Protein backbone atom coordinates (compact mmCIF):
# COMPACT_ATOMS: atom_id res chain seq x y z
CA UNK A 1 0.00 0.00 0.00
CA UNK A 2 2.75 2.36 0.96
CA UNK A 3 4.48 1.71 -2.31
CA UNK A 4 1.41 2.62 -4.23
CA UNK A 5 1.04 5.86 -2.35
CA UNK A 6 4.56 6.76 -3.23
CA UNK A 7 3.98 5.84 -6.84
CA UNK A 8 1.17 8.29 -7.30
CA UNK A 9 2.21 11.79 -6.38
CA UNK A 10 -0.87 13.79 -5.64
CA UNK A 11 0.35 17.14 -6.80
CA UNK A 12 1.01 15.92 -10.29
CA UNK A 13 -1.88 15.65 -12.63
CA UNK A 14 -0.90 13.29 -15.42
CA UNK A 15 -3.61 14.62 -17.66
CA UNK A 16 -2.73 18.26 -17.28
CA UNK A 17 -0.75 18.30 -20.47
CA UNK A 18 -3.34 16.43 -22.38
CA UNK A 19 -6.03 18.80 -21.19
CA UNK A 20 -4.00 21.80 -22.17
CA UNK A 21 -3.14 20.50 -25.57
CA UNK A 22 -6.67 19.32 -26.09
CA UNK A 23 -7.98 22.79 -25.45
CA UNK A 24 -5.45 24.63 -27.52
CA UNK A 25 -4.01 21.99 -29.76
CA UNK A 26 -5.07 19.91 -32.64
CA UNK A 27 -8.42 18.85 -31.39
CA UNK A 28 -10.29 22.06 -30.79
CA UNK A 29 -10.83 23.62 -34.12
CA UNK A 30 -12.51 26.89 -34.75
CA UNK A 31 -14.93 26.24 -37.55
CA UNK A 32 -15.76 29.01 -39.91
CA UNK A 33 -18.69 28.17 -42.11
CA UNK A 34 -20.72 29.83 -44.75
CA UNK A 35 -24.35 29.43 -45.40
CA UNK A 36 -26.34 30.53 -48.36
CA UNK A 37 -29.34 32.70 -47.94
CA UNK A 38 -31.73 33.93 -50.52
CA UNK A 39 -30.20 35.50 -53.57
CA UNK A 40 -26.52 36.18 -53.35
CA UNK A 41 -26.63 36.81 -49.66
CA UNK A 42 -24.80 34.64 -47.29
CA UNK A 43 -24.03 34.17 -43.64
CA UNK A 44 -20.78 33.37 -41.92
CA UNK A 45 -20.72 31.48 -38.67
CA UNK A 46 -17.79 31.14 -36.32
CA UNK A 47 -18.03 28.22 -33.99
CA UNK A 48 -15.70 26.83 -31.39
CA UNK A 49 -13.94 29.87 -30.01
CA UNK A 50 -12.71 29.45 -26.48
CA UNK A 51 -15.34 29.97 -23.84
CA UNK A 52 -13.19 32.40 -21.90
CA UNK A 53 -13.35 34.96 -24.63
CA UNK A 54 -15.92 37.65 -24.50
CA UNK A 55 -17.92 36.97 -27.61
CA UNK A 56 -19.61 40.32 -27.46
CA UNK A 57 -16.35 42.20 -27.58
CA UNK A 58 -15.00 40.14 -30.42
CA UNK A 59 -18.21 40.64 -32.29
CA UNK A 60 -18.11 44.35 -31.77
CA UNK A 61 -14.62 44.63 -33.20
CA UNK A 62 -15.40 42.32 -36.05
CA UNK A 63 -18.48 44.24 -36.97
CA UNK A 64 -16.57 47.46 -36.98
CA UNK A 65 -13.72 46.03 -38.98
CA UNK A 66 -15.70 44.41 -41.74
CA UNK A 67 -18.61 46.81 -41.75
CA UNK A 68 -21.19 44.11 -41.36
CA UNK A 69 -23.77 43.24 -38.85
CA UNK A 70 -23.81 40.14 -36.77
CA UNK A 71 -24.80 38.64 -33.51
CA UNK A 72 -24.05 35.94 -31.01
CA UNK A 73 -26.33 32.95 -31.13
CA UNK A 74 -26.69 30.52 -28.27
CA UNK A 75 -26.90 26.99 -29.49
CA UNK A 76 -27.97 24.18 -27.20
CA UNK A 77 -25.16 21.83 -28.12
CA UNK A 78 -22.45 24.03 -29.50
CA UNK A 79 -22.63 26.94 -27.10
CA UNK A 80 -22.16 30.41 -28.44
CA UNK A 81 -21.75 30.98 -32.12
CA UNK A 82 -20.92 34.23 -33.84
CA UNK A 83 -22.94 35.02 -36.91
CA UNK A 84 -21.94 37.61 -39.43
CA UNK A 85 -23.63 38.91 -42.49
CA UNK A 86 -22.02 38.19 -45.78
CA UNK A 87 -19.12 35.99 -46.76
CA UNK A 88 -16.54 36.98 -44.16
CA UNK A 89 -14.64 33.72 -43.97
CA UNK A 90 -11.30 35.07 -45.09
CA UNK A 91 -11.72 38.23 -43.10
CA UNK A 92 -12.67 36.48 -39.91
CA UNK A 93 -9.86 33.96 -40.06
CA UNK A 94 -7.38 36.73 -40.74
CA UNK A 95 -8.81 38.77 -37.91
CA UNK A 96 -8.65 35.93 -35.41
CA UNK A 97 -5.08 35.16 -36.32
CA UNK A 98 -3.96 38.75 -36.19
CA UNK A 99 -5.65 39.36 -32.89
CA UNK A 100 -3.91 36.30 -31.49
CA UNK A 101 -7.10 34.63 -30.45
CA UNK A 102 -6.57 31.50 -32.47
CA UNK A 103 -3.60 29.96 -34.17
CA UNK A 104 -3.69 29.46 -37.85
CA UNK A 105 -3.69 25.69 -37.78
CA UNK A 106 -6.67 25.62 -35.48
CA UNK A 107 -8.92 27.35 -37.92
CA UNK A 108 -10.95 25.29 -40.30
CA UNK A 109 -12.72 27.06 -43.06
CA UNK A 110 -15.64 25.13 -44.45
CA UNK A 111 -17.79 25.68 -47.43
CA UNK A 112 -16.88 25.98 -51.04
Amino acid at each position, binding site marked *: MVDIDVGIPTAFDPFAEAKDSGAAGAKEYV*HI*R*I*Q*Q*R*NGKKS*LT*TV*QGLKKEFSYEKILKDVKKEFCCNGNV*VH*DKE*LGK*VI*QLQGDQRKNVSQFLINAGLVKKDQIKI*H*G*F
Partner: protein
Amino acid sequence: MDDEENQNQIKDEVKDDAADIAPFDPTKKKKKKKPVIQDPVEEESVDTLAEKTESLSVSDGLETSFAGLKKKKKKPVHTDLDDESENVGDELDDTIGEDEEGEGIVLQQYPWEGSDRDYEYEELLGRVFNILRENNPELAGDRRRTVMRPPQVLREGTKKTVFVNFMDLCKTMHRQPEHVMTFLLAEMGTSGSLDGQQRLVVKGRFAPKNFEGILRRYINEYVICNGCKSPDTILSKENRLFFLRCEKCGSGRSVAPIKAGFVARVGRRKAGT
Protein backbone atom coordinates in the same frame (compact mmCIF):
# COMPACT_ATOMS: atom_id res chain seq x y z
CA MET B 1 21.87 8.98 -87.41
CA ASP B 2 25.15 7.34 -86.63
CA ASP B 3 25.28 9.13 -83.36
CA GLU B 4 21.83 8.05 -82.48
CA GLU B 5 22.58 4.45 -83.15
CA ASN B 6 25.55 4.72 -80.94
CA GLN B 7 23.41 6.04 -78.15
CA ASN B 8 20.95 3.36 -78.86
CA GLN B 9 23.53 0.71 -78.26
CA ILE B 10 24.63 2.27 -75.05
CA LYS B 11 21.11 2.42 -73.84
CA ASP B 12 20.51 -1.20 -74.62
CA GLU B 13 23.59 -2.18 -72.76
CA VAL B 14 22.58 -0.28 -69.70
CA LYS B 15 19.05 -1.51 -69.54
CA ASP B 16 18.16 -4.79 -71.06
CA ASP B 17 14.79 -4.65 -69.40
CA ALA B 18 13.80 -1.67 -71.43
CA ALA B 19 13.86 -3.78 -74.52
CA ASP B 20 10.89 -5.73 -73.27
CA ILE B 21 8.59 -2.77 -73.46
CA ALA B 22 9.14 -1.94 -77.07
CA PRO B 23 11.91 -2.45 -79.58
CA PHE B 24 13.88 0.71 -79.76
CA ASP B 25 13.60 2.26 -83.13
CA PRO B 26 14.55 5.85 -83.74
CA THR B 27 11.86 6.21 -86.32
CA LYS B 28 9.16 5.26 -83.86
CA LYS B 29 10.08 7.74 -81.24
CA LYS B 30 6.73 9.38 -81.00
CA LYS B 31 4.90 6.13 -80.70
CA LYS B 32 6.82 5.08 -77.72
CA LYS B 33 5.91 8.09 -75.67
CA LYS B 34 2.26 7.23 -75.76
CA PRO B 35 2.15 4.11 -73.63
CA VAL B 36 4.31 5.85 -71.08
CA ILE B 37 1.62 8.41 -70.56
CA GLN B 38 -1.38 6.23 -70.64
CA ASP B 39 -0.25 3.22 -68.70
CA PRO B 40 -0.58 4.61 -65.18
CA VAL B 41 -3.97 6.01 -65.91
CA GLU B 42 -5.23 2.63 -66.93
CA GLU B 43 -3.64 0.98 -63.98
CA GLU B 44 -5.43 3.20 -61.61
CA SER B 45 -8.65 1.82 -63.01
CA VAL B 46 -10.00 5.23 -63.68
CA ASP B 47 -12.30 5.26 -66.61
CA THR B 48 -10.26 6.80 -69.35
CA LEU B 49 -13.20 7.28 -71.63
CA ALA B 50 -14.17 10.46 -69.90
CA GLU B 51 -12.87 13.67 -71.19
CA LYS B 52 -10.18 14.92 -68.91
CA THR B 53 -10.26 18.55 -69.75
CA GLU B 54 -10.32 19.63 -66.18
CA SER B 55 -8.92 16.90 -64.06
CA LEU B 56 -8.85 16.86 -60.32
CA SER B 57 -5.23 16.26 -59.76
CA VAL B 58 -4.70 15.56 -56.13
CA SER B 59 -0.97 15.20 -56.00
CA ASP B 60 1.13 16.37 -58.83
CA GLY B 61 4.26 14.65 -59.83
CA LEU B 62 7.66 16.13 -59.36
CA GLU B 63 8.66 15.63 -62.93
CA THR B 64 8.65 19.20 -64.08
CA SER B 65 10.45 20.61 -61.12
CA PHE B 66 12.95 17.81 -61.29
CA ALA B 67 13.71 18.36 -64.92
CA GLY B 68 14.14 22.04 -64.36
CA LEU B 69 16.53 21.42 -61.54
CA LYS B 70 18.55 19.04 -63.60
CA LYS B 71 19.05 21.48 -66.39
CA LYS B 72 19.95 24.37 -64.18
CA LYS B 73 22.42 22.44 -62.14
CA LYS B 74 24.24 21.08 -65.12
CA LYS B 75 25.75 24.13 -66.68
CA PRO B 76 27.68 25.72 -63.84
CA VAL B 77 29.12 22.35 -62.96
CA HIS B 78 30.64 21.86 -66.33
CA THR B 79 31.99 25.29 -67.01
CA ASP B 80 35.03 24.98 -64.81
CA LEU B 81 36.01 21.55 -65.99
CA ASP B 82 38.33 20.86 -68.87
CA ASP B 83 37.38 21.06 -72.52
CA GLU B 84 36.56 17.45 -73.04
CA SER B 85 34.03 17.17 -70.31
CA GLU B 86 32.52 20.47 -71.30
CA ASN B 87 31.79 19.04 -74.68
CA VAL B 88 30.19 16.06 -73.13
CA GLY B 89 28.13 18.31 -70.93
CA ASP B 90 26.86 20.15 -73.93
CA GLU B 91 25.83 16.92 -75.47
CA LEU B 92 23.95 16.02 -72.37
CA ASP B 93 22.18 19.30 -72.42
CA ASP B 94 21.16 18.59 -75.95
CA THR B 95 19.70 15.29 -75.06
CA ILE B 96 17.71 16.80 -72.27
CA GLY B 97 16.46 19.44 -74.60
CA GLU B 98 15.28 16.79 -76.99
CA ASP B 99 13.50 15.06 -74.21
CA GLU B 100 11.65 18.15 -73.26
CA GLU B 101 10.60 18.82 -76.78
CA GLY B 102 8.49 15.74 -76.55
CA GLU B 103 10.61 13.60 -78.84
CA GLY B 104 10.09 10.91 -76.33
CA ILE B 105 13.17 8.95 -75.51
CA VAL B 106 15.83 10.00 -73.11
CA LEU B 107 18.99 9.33 -74.97
CA GLN B 108 21.44 8.06 -72.52
CA GLN B 109 24.69 9.75 -73.16
CA TYR B 110 26.29 9.93 -69.80
CA PRO B 111 28.48 12.90 -69.13
CA TRP B 112 31.17 10.84 -67.46
CA GLU B 113 31.81 8.74 -70.53
CA GLY B 114 35.12 9.43 -72.11
CA SER B 115 36.52 11.12 -69.05
CA ASP B 116 37.77 9.48 -65.90
CA ARG B 117 36.24 11.86 -63.44
CA ASP B 118 33.91 10.79 -60.69
CA TYR B 119 30.19 10.56 -61.17
CA GLU B 120 28.24 13.36 -59.67
CA TYR B 121 25.23 12.87 -57.54
CA GLU B 122 22.90 14.88 -59.72
CA GLU B 123 23.87 12.93 -62.79
CA LEU B 124 23.43 9.58 -61.14
CA LEU B 125 20.11 10.65 -59.75
CA GLY B 126 18.99 11.74 -63.16
CA ARG B 127 20.08 8.45 -64.62
CA VAL B 128 18.20 6.45 -62.04
CA PHE B 129 15.06 8.45 -62.60
CA ASN B 130 15.29 8.06 -66.33
CA ILE B 131 15.63 4.31 -66.03
CA LEU B 132 12.83 4.13 -63.54
CA ARG B 133 10.59 6.28 -65.63
CA GLU B 134 11.01 4.09 -68.64
CA ASN B 135 10.73 0.73 -66.99
CA ASN B 136 7.94 1.31 -64.54
CA PRO B 137 6.67 4.85 -64.58
CA GLU B 138 4.40 4.44 -61.59
CA LEU B 139 7.42 4.16 -59.31
CA ALA B 140 9.17 7.26 -60.53
CA GLY B 141 7.07 9.59 -58.48
CA ASP B 142 5.48 11.42 -61.34
CA ARG B 143 2.21 10.51 -63.00
CA ARG B 144 0.83 9.71 -59.63
CA ARG B 145 -2.37 11.57 -60.00
CA THR B 146 -5.93 10.64 -59.65
CA VAL B 147 -7.86 11.65 -62.64
CA MET B 148 -11.42 12.43 -61.87
CA ARG B 149 -14.09 13.79 -64.02
CA PRO B 150 -15.17 17.31 -63.27
CA PRO B 151 -18.49 17.50 -61.51
CA GLN B 152 -21.42 18.16 -63.77
CA VAL B 153 -23.88 20.49 -62.22
CA LEU B 154 -27.31 21.57 -63.31
CA ARG B 155 -29.66 24.11 -61.89
CA GLU B 156 -33.06 22.90 -60.92
CA GLY B 157 -35.28 25.92 -60.78
CA THR B 158 -33.43 28.75 -59.17
CA LYS B 159 -32.82 27.45 -55.71
CA LYS B 160 -31.67 23.92 -56.18
CA THR B 161 -28.59 22.45 -57.73
CA VAL B 162 -28.32 18.98 -59.19
CA PHE B 163 -25.01 17.17 -59.08
CA VAL B 164 -25.35 14.84 -62.04
CA ASN B 165 -22.35 12.56 -61.96
CA PHE B 166 -22.32 12.20 -58.21
CA MET B 167 -22.58 8.42 -58.36
CA ASP B 168 -19.77 8.16 -60.86
CA LEU B 169 -17.48 10.16 -58.68
CA CYS B 170 -18.38 8.08 -55.66
CA LYS B 171 -17.52 4.98 -57.61
CA THR B 172 -14.17 6.31 -58.74
CA MET B 173 -13.35 7.18 -55.16
CA HIS B 174 -14.70 3.84 -53.87
CA ARG B 175 -16.77 5.54 -51.24
CA GLN B 176 -20.32 5.12 -50.08
CA PRO B 177 -22.53 7.77 -51.64
CA GLU B 178 -24.09 8.38 -48.25
CA HIS B 179 -20.75 9.24 -46.74
CA VAL B 180 -19.82 11.59 -49.54
CA MET B 181 -23.23 13.12 -49.40
CA THR B 182 -23.13 13.83 -45.70
CA PHE B 183 -19.75 15.42 -46.13
CA LEU B 184 -20.86 17.61 -48.99
CA LEU B 185 -23.98 18.72 -47.21
CA ALA B 186 -22.16 19.39 -43.97
CA GLU B 187 -19.55 21.45 -45.75
CA MET B 188 -22.03 23.45 -47.73
CA GLY B 189 -24.32 23.90 -44.78
CA THR B 190 -27.43 22.99 -46.66
CA SER B 191 -29.78 20.11 -47.05
CA GLY B 192 -30.16 17.80 -49.98
CA SER B 193 -31.03 14.33 -51.10
CA LEU B 194 -30.58 11.78 -53.82
CA ASP B 195 -33.22 11.79 -56.48
CA GLY B 196 -34.65 8.97 -58.57
CA GLN B 197 -31.72 8.81 -60.98
CA GLN B 198 -29.23 8.78 -58.15
CA ARG B 199 -28.30 12.37 -58.63
CA LEU B 200 -27.62 14.62 -55.73
CA VAL B 201 -30.01 17.50 -55.32
CA VAL B 202 -28.72 20.24 -53.08
CA LYS B 203 -30.57 23.25 -51.86
CA GLY B 204 -28.87 26.45 -52.78
CA ARG B 205 -26.92 27.68 -55.74
CA PHE B 206 -23.51 26.22 -56.29
CA ALA B 207 -21.06 26.34 -59.14
CA PRO B 208 -19.19 23.24 -60.31
CA LYS B 209 -16.07 24.82 -58.93
CA ASN B 210 -17.53 24.81 -55.47
CA PHE B 211 -18.24 21.12 -55.68
CA GLU B 212 -14.78 20.53 -56.96
CA GLY B 213 -13.19 22.31 -54.05
CA ILE B 214 -15.20 20.39 -51.53
CA LEU B 215 -14.56 17.09 -53.25
CA ARG B 216 -10.88 17.86 -53.24
CA ARG B 217 -11.01 18.39 -49.53
CA TYR B 218 -12.98 15.18 -49.15
CA ILE B 219 -10.39 13.27 -51.09
CA ASN B 220 -7.56 14.68 -49.08
CA GLU B 221 -9.24 13.81 -45.86
CA TYR B 222 -11.04 10.56 -46.53
CA VAL B 223 -9.49 8.98 -49.60
CA ILE B 224 -5.82 9.68 -49.96
CA CYS B 225 -3.44 7.50 -47.98
CA ASN B 226 -1.13 9.56 -45.85
CA GLY B 227 1.82 7.31 -46.35
CA CYS B 228 1.95 6.66 -50.06
CA LYS B 229 -0.56 9.21 -51.37
CA SER B 230 -2.42 6.58 -53.30
CA PRO B 231 -6.17 6.89 -53.60
CA ASP B 232 -6.58 3.14 -53.45
CA THR B 233 -8.00 2.96 -49.98
CA ILE B 234 -10.90 1.46 -48.10
CA LEU B 235 -12.97 3.23 -45.51
CA SER B 236 -14.40 0.97 -42.88
CA LYS B 237 -16.32 1.53 -39.72
CA GLU B 238 -15.28 -0.21 -36.54
CA ASN B 239 -16.90 0.51 -33.23
CA ARG B 240 -18.34 3.78 -34.40
CA LEU B 241 -14.96 4.94 -35.63
CA PHE B 242 -13.99 5.34 -39.22
CA PHE B 243 -10.73 3.83 -40.33
CA LEU B 244 -8.95 4.30 -43.59
CA ARG B 245 -6.84 1.43 -44.82
CA CYS B 246 -4.57 1.71 -47.80
CA GLU B 247 -4.66 -1.08 -50.34
CA LYS B 248 -1.27 -0.24 -51.77
CA CYS B 249 0.93 0.09 -48.74
CA GLY B 250 -1.28 -1.42 -46.06
CA SER B 251 -1.10 1.49 -43.69
CA GLY B 252 -4.14 2.62 -41.82
CA ARG B 253 -5.32 5.69 -40.02
CA SER B 254 -8.42 6.88 -38.32
CA VAL B 255 -10.41 9.68 -39.83
CA ALA B 256 -12.68 12.14 -38.13
CA PRO B 257 -16.38 11.54 -38.33
CA ILE B 258 -18.40 14.05 -40.27
CA LYS B 259 -20.05 16.62 -38.12
CA ALA B 260 -22.55 19.01 -39.49
CA GLY B 261 -21.77 21.83 -37.11
CA PHE B 262 -23.86 24.87 -36.55
CA VAL B 263 -26.49 25.64 -39.13
CA ALA B 264 -28.07 28.98 -38.71
CA ARG B 265 -31.67 29.48 -39.28
CA VAL B 266 -32.21 30.89 -42.73
CA GLY B 267 -35.41 31.92 -44.32
CA ARG B 268 -38.72 33.04 -43.13
CA ARG B 269 -39.74 32.24 -39.65
CA LYS B 270 -43.20 31.06 -39.04
CA ALA B 271 -45.37 33.13 -36.84
CA GLY B 272 -45.98 30.25 -34.48
CA THR B 273 -42.44 29.56 -33.45
